């Protein structure tokens, strides 16, 4: 026994290096960081009932966004998106939805062209039009047909 202890003492550096090499190879389970991951991930899943914003929010007041027609359009879209749309049983076929598409179209092309594009989109958002849509354009996350505003010029 004393011989063995003397041997261990003598080779302590080698034993230390040997253990160090084992430490490097092993990769233990990081339970604490995994639990942190679970916590942050689940907190992100909580659905916050955030209101959808007004179309001209945080924009400098100009004639384009403060004339009566724009105010009426913006106000009714806001009321529709935040108060009425959730009570309808039907879902929109497209991604972005018709109301979001309209918002983006008016922002990009102005009220006149934007309204015409909205009418066109609303006419295409029905069961008959759905039969002619390309299945390749289905968005995997939203399960709806992709029809972004960038397609229109």
């Amino acid at each position, binding site marked *: 026994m004393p011989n063995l202890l003397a*041997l261990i003492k*003598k*080779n302590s550096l*080698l*034993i230390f*290096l*040997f253990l160090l*090499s*084992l430490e*490097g*190879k092993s*990769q233990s*389970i990081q*339970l*604490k960081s*995994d*639990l*942190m*991951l*679970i*916590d942050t*991930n*689940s*907190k992100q*899943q*909580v*659905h916050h009932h955030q209101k959808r914003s007004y179309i001209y929010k945080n924009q400098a007041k100009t004639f384009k966004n403060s004339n009566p027609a724009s105010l009426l359009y913006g106000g009714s879209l806001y009321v529709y998106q935040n*108060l*009425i749309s*959730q*009570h*309808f*049983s*039907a879902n929109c076929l497209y991604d972005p939805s018709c109301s979001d598409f309209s918002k983006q179209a008016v922002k990009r092309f102005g009220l006149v062209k934007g309204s015409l594009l909205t009418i066109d989109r609303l006419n295409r958002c029905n069961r008959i039009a759905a039969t002619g849509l390309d299945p390749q354009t289905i968005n995997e996350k939203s399960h709806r047909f992709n029809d972004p505003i960038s397609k229109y010029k």
Partner: protein
Amino acid sequence: MRYTIKYFFSFIFLCAIFSNSTAQNGKADSLYAVGNYFAASIEYERMLFHSPDVATQHYFKYRKAQCYKQLKDFSRALEELQSIYFNNSSDSLYMRVCYEQSLCLYLNGEAPKALWKIDEYIHRSKDSTSFQYFMPIKLLCYNETQQWNEAKGCFVQFIKAQTFSQEKEKELTDSIEWLYTRKNLPRMKSADRAETWSRFIPGAGQIYAGHTGEGITNFLINASILTFAGIQAINHYYITGYLMGLGFFNKTYHGGMKRAVTLAQERNKEEMIRFNSKINQMIRESCIAE
């Protein structure tokens, strides 16, 4: 002298293996360590392509899955892990792969499958000391599936598996008992009941799910559309009353039922996340040493 030589050779042998594997893994591991998980996953993929044997391939697949987990792409991590097959349950990687699989299943919202995976590991593995690593996930899965008694039992088992003093163990067991009393458990709302409420009184399902304002709005919308249809019928405008009134009523009535179910499910999810977050914090703060 004989022993010294033995030690010396064993050191050289292990050090050679270690230095070789470090040189190979070095870049990928360092990318992983600095948090560049996407680049690390590509590097592990490259090493997987060049790896000569199945065991090494398994290891790199496991590391790749860990990268995807950190990137929060849990379904892809699961795809990677599910392609790893073990003939021998005593393989050192088996426990870690099973652990990652159950964790990713839980994170992917598949708590029953995660429970099944953990049970499979417990059934196949002979290393009972490793079971405690699975217990926190098992406990959260039991909570998610509302198996409260099993969850409580699992939590107590996890506490007993730790090396706590008797006082500390008693304190933690008491707090578990308190946590799982009826008044502290999440109050779940039945989605079916919400739908039934909305079927008979439009808007009542939303109020049941805790959204009074939305329920009242739904009731008013339905009532005003029905009133419109009635007035049109009284004035002999039957077609307008039928198409505009009952057509819209059909949309808002069924929409209200659907919305009540969604709201009840969302509320249940939030309650469960709040409860599990409390338990998660308790495990992290009092049960796992730094």
